[in-house]
Structure formats: C-alpha cells, structure tokens
C-alpha cells in the first residue's frame, strides 16, 4: 500500500497554496496515508495550516534554525531521511519544489517524475514534454520510492477547513551542510492576487510598449480583481519584474479567465496558459498565434480597447 509524504512549501510563516494542490495529487494515488512534512525554524503556524487540509493524515515537523530559509542543500538530506517508509514523496512544481525534489531523488538513488499532470496509477503518471506539445505517460519502478513534483496548474487545491490532522515533531539525526548560505530575498511587494493561484489573470506583452504603459495593465487588472502576468518579451524589455513571467520557463497557470494583451503567443508562452478556463486575446495583429488558442479574440489597438473595456465596466 502507498504512503505519501508531501513537502510543505511556505514563506514568512504562511503555507503556500501549492502545497494543497500537491495534496490533491496525493489523494489521487488513493494511499493509506498522506503526511505533510514541514521544515522550518518556527513550524507552528505553517503546521496548523497544513493540518487543516482535508486528506492529510499527519503533519510532521522539523524545527531547526538551519531551516529558516529553504536551501535545497540543507533541506534535502532531512527529506531523504524522513522519506524512509514512504512509497511516494511529492513536492509542488514551484521553484521551491524543482530546486529541492531532484536533490532528494538523487540522495534516494531514484528517478524523479517532474510536473505530474495526472495520476494513472500508483506508479504511472502523465507529464508534459517539449513545452507541453506532447504529453507522455511514464512509469516509475515500483521497487523504489517515487519522487515527483506536482504541476500546480493541473490540480485544484485540496479543501481546507474543519479537518485537524495531528501534528508530530520529528527527530531526524542528520548532519547538515554549511556550504550553502542564504543572503537575502528581494521581493516585489504587491497587494494584487497571487499570480499562481488567482482566478483571473491579465497579462501584457511586448505590444504594451514600455514600463510606463504597463500601468494600464495594472489598472485594468485591479478593476476586475485580477493578478498581473507578462510574456518573456515584456520581462526582458524591463517592463515588469521576472516573477510575473508566464510560460514554459516562468509560471504555469490555470486561471478561470486569462486575458493576453499585446502578446503574440509564442509556443513557450502558450505552454503556461493552456489549461486556463477562458482565454481572451487582444492584439492588433489578427494573424498572431495567440488567436489560435483564444476563446474570444479582439483585433485592434490595445490602448483603445483597454480604455473601452474600462468604460464598459464602469
């Protein structure tokens, strides 16, 4: 029977919603237990949040000063040790999970399944390759633990509420390396919804033209309560910070509504939005590839159209 260990991602004492999405994938394996592992300096707040996720059997905590920052080199030996007795180790396919999980897999001497989109069996999974242009079914060796990262856009967050799983401190006798040290985290401060979990996203591309012009994207997003995203071209041109990039090499998202404004729709960008509920494209080039995937397309000058949209909504 399967027992799954889900690695909790958290920042500043708050659980990242991607963790609850990884729990959903764990539930799909139909295991006998799903335990969530919280590695932190102060574990209490994060553990309490994790314990409230439906489907979680236990929350295991390791409180150590070295775990104050999520350094893969420090966390991986602890996860590998904690993984004993588990058939699966899941982490969200965020930069946190992508950094950590392969290091854990290598310590366990097992292959890793990246970006699980669906669970076909306890050891069979679907995942995208070639920027999402092909979907493969892969089978892991049932003789070993499965280490996998879970593509957050493919899974709903497991509900959080009345459930209250027991929280247990885990004593791990592991020597931790000191060769890797955290220096600082530079964060864009934003009151807007989080790009990865927002139900609506408005993205701008090269067509927006400048950093100053991007204000109209922010303004329109705020008007409809959406998160803001961007194409690689807009990030490279310096219009917006890199953490807003949507696509194969940025964030892969699945909002209910995705509005692409001034984005042509390169393969690498489309990979990041293919699972969106409704895609709207606004572009002056009627031949732009974005229109091939858009549910609603509007050809014209984006500045004029955004103004008109705002007027319609006022």
């Amino acid at each position, binding site marked *: 029977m399967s027992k799954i260990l889900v690695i909790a991602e958290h920042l500043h004492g708050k659980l990242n919603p991607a963790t609850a999405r990884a729990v959903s994938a764990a539930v799909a394996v139909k295991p006998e237990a799903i335990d969530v592992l919280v590695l932190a300096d102060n574990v209490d707040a994060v553990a309490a949040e994790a314990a409230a996720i439906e489907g979680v059997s236990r929350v295991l905590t390791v409180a150590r000063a070295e775990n104050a920052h999520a350094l893969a080199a420090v966390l991986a030996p602890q996860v590998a040790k904690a993984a004993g007795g588990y058939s699966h180790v899941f982490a969200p396919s965020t930069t946190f999970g992508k950094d950590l999980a392969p290091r854990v897999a290598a310590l366990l001497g097992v292959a890793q399944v990246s970006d699980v989109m669906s669970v076909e069996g306890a050891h069979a999974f679907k995942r995208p390759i*070639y920027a999402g242009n092909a979907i493969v079914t892969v089978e892991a060796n049932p003789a070993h633990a499965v280490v996998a990262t879970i593509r957050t856009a493919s899974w709903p967050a497991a509900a959080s509420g009345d459930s209250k799983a027991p929280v247990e401190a885990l004593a791990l006798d592991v020597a931790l390396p000191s060769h890797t040290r955290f220096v600082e*985290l530079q964060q864009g401060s934003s009151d807007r919804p989080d790009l990865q979990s927002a139900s609506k996203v408005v993205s701008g591309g090269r067509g927006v033209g400048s950093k100053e012009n991007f204000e109209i994207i922010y303004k329109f997003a705020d008007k409809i309560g959406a998160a803001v995203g961007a194409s690689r071209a807009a990030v490279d041109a310096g219009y917006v910070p890199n953490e807003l990039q949507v696509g194969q090499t940025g964030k892969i998202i699945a909002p209910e*509504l995705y509005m692409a404004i001034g984005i042509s729709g390169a393969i690498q960008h489309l990979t990041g939005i293919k699972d969106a509920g*409704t895609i709207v494209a606004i572009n002056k080039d009627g031949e732009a590839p974005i229109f091939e995937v858009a549910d609603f397309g509007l050809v014209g000058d984006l500045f004029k159209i955004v103004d*008109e949209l705002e007027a319609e909504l006022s």
Partner: protein
Amino acid sequence: MKILVGYKRVVDYNVRIQVKPDGTGVVTDGVKLSANPFDDIALEEALRLREKGVATEVVVVGIGPADLTAHLRNGLAMGANRAIHVVTTDAVQPLTAARAFLKLVEKEQPGLVLMGKQAIDDDANQTGQMLAALWDRPQATFASKLEIADGKATVTREVDAGLEVIEAELPAVVTTDLRLNEPRFIKLPDIMKAKSKPIDTIEFDSLGVEAHDHLATTHYAAPAKRSKGVMVKDAAELVAALKQKGLL
C-alpha cells in the same frame, strides 16, 4: 579554475513538435537540432568568467551518439577550450546523466559546473540538482546573476517570490536561467579554429555508471486541443460575452 559546462543537443526551440500517430514517440527525423538554449547561456557565462580571469579552462560536455561531435564543435567555436563526448546511443535520463557527470567531475576536478536549468525537450529540470546531491556540493539553480570571489559563488536566483541571493562555497553546481546573459554568436573564423580543438571521446559503458532505474515512457499523446474560439467585434461585445459566462 576549470569550468565544466553541460551542453545538450535538443530539437530546436522554434520547431513545432509532432507526436507520432501510434503514440510511440515524437517525430525527430529530419527535424532541426540545436544547443539547448539554457546550455548556450551556461557556456556564455563560463566564457565570460574565463575572460574575467576567474576561470582558466572551459570544457563542454555532451552525452549522445557519434554525430554529437558536430554539436560539440559548435561549443568549441563559441569559445570552449575543449570538449568531452560521452558516447551512447541510449536516451539518457537526468539521474544517469548526473551519475555520468559525477565521474567526469571526479576526473577533471572542476571548480564550477554550469548547466542549463532545464532541457527544452524533456523539461525535467533535474540534472544539475542531482549532480550537486551526488557530489555533496552546493547548488544554485535558476541563476540570473553569478559572481565569483574568495572561493565562493554569490548567486542571484529567480524564484517564484522574486529574486533570492545565496552564497555557495566552491566547487558548486550552478544552473542558468534565461536572464543570466545573452549568448554570443559564432563567427566563421572561430568555426575553423574549433576544428583543431580537442574532443575527448569516452564510451559511456567505460564510466562504470549504473544506468538502470529509468522511468519507462509507455505512451506519447498530443495535448488536448482547445475548441475554436470566436472573434468579437468590439469591447462591448467582449464584456457582454465574459459577463454571460460569469467571468466579469
């Protein structure tokens, strides 16, 4: 200091890949192959470190069939001092690649290994991390800035929350993100010069790497197609349509 650079050959990023109708793979015959874009960035960064006097030698490493030599020549033309070609006709998955790399690391004793953050064919994003784990050395993934001084690398990493800066004692593994640099173009005279640069050929089997414990790929499918959308004529019609779907 010596730098090893992982240099994978992949289907060119502009190619729209086709899945074979029988689900056994993707069509790769006659398709344009290029350096993995992230690996070009890794090589560029290594060359810049050599130009700054931080590195003395840059070695590109490729794992693949006999005709991979031509690809490695591109790396030499870009500026690498020499190449190592690990010859195998088998598809090499990340854990196996990391194990093979570790053997080369033990032999070459580099101060730094630079790799792309992911290959655009398998999109795994694993090899650098796995090598760092097996080597028991620091890893700095998704690097957008790299500074080396006093035996350590200070690396700015592109993480979901923004930019994270970490310090890693050398030797270490650094994987490159898109914004680390803009790779240089290869010039014709450099292509001629590259012909005389050395390529060491090593048979994969002679490395003594366990190549089992692969993931078995049992089926390939094209992604589900989105149904054809509609073009609306103006903002009013768009708002009406989105309101009708309950999205605004």
